[in-house]
């Protein structure tokens, strides 16, 4: 058979569309003898599928989202409130007490306002503590006889 004849015979025969693609499947099916779909569903399963039920579930979503948002907002609000409440008293201590209130407090506690002001102006940072011996006290008293009586008066209760 010549090449031309071969080509003509090729053109003369045709196969259904997708035949060669399906050959592999058919051979496989014949080899194995396996069912293509061995799976089944419960009776009436497809009829029981309700699209409106799914729509309902879909539309419930914003509520869930709102609930979640509400929860997070509530937690954030509590957190902020705790911070504010713990900070407000300390702020009031420093910012809201006025001079008049201080004066009232001083008077109520029998503190001499003059001494109070004076005490405020004394710089105590330069003061040093000295250990004064008993001999020094005696010497001081002997050299200052006027204060001797006061000394005995002070010693009296301890006798």
């Amino acid at each position: 058979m010549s090449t031309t004849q071969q080509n003509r015979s090729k053109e003369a025969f045709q196969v259904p569309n997708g035949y060669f693609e399906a050959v592999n499947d058919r051979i496989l099916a014949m080899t194995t003898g396996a069912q293509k779909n061995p799976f089944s569903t419960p009776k009436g399963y497809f009829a029981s599928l309700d699209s409106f039920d799914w729509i309902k579930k879909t539309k419930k979503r914003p509520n869930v989202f709102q609930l979640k948002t509400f929860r997070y907002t509530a937690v954030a609000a509590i957190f902020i409130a705790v911070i504010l409440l713990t900070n407000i008293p300390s702020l009031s201590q420093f910012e809201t007490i006025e001079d008049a209130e201080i004066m009232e407090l001083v008077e109520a506690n029998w503190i001499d306002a003059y001494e109070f002001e004076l005490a405020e102006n004394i710089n105590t940072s330069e003061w040093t503590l000295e250990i004064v011996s008993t001999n020094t006290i005696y010497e001081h008293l002997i050299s200052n006889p006027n204060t001797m009586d006061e000394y005995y008066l002070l010693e009296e209760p301890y006798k």
Partner: protein
Amino acid sequence: MSDEIALIKSLQDPNTQDQAFSVLVEQYKERLYWHIRKIVLDHHDSDDVLQNTFIKIYRNIAKFKGDSKLYTWMYRIATNESLTFVKRKSKQMGVKSSEYIEKTAQNLRADPYFDGNDIALKLQKAIGSLPEKQRLVFQMKYQESMKYKDISAILGTSVGALKTSYHHAVKKIKEKITTRQTF
């Protein structure tokens, strides 16, 4: 095609959305169910995934721009949902996705909704042992008789690569089935 465009328009219109959605469910519920079932194998799991798939379709239909066919878009969602489900389940069990599928396929004999004979069971076990991509291609081509062009649109893989995957899958399955080994 014009019916599909009209359905998409109805789905994207808030006034007709719910009615159009029930039409869509009616048209595609069985096809999508079987697609999902071939991936997750168990009926109850397939039922859950089918519900999630349709809920996702309903929520995202407004974003569908018509770049692909509606049904390939829905199949893509169903495939992703199924694979996500398998991954979640295998994570819960502390095994790989492939191990989970193999295990589920091995338990098919006890499944009341599996009516296959021994050869069908062997085939399912052999499919379960395939890598994910080959398994998907084999299921869609052999079991669902889908066209390469459509599988390509769903899986986002070239037709050439799909043909290669399918060829490898068939070869492996033939080997598994013809050898006398027990799975």
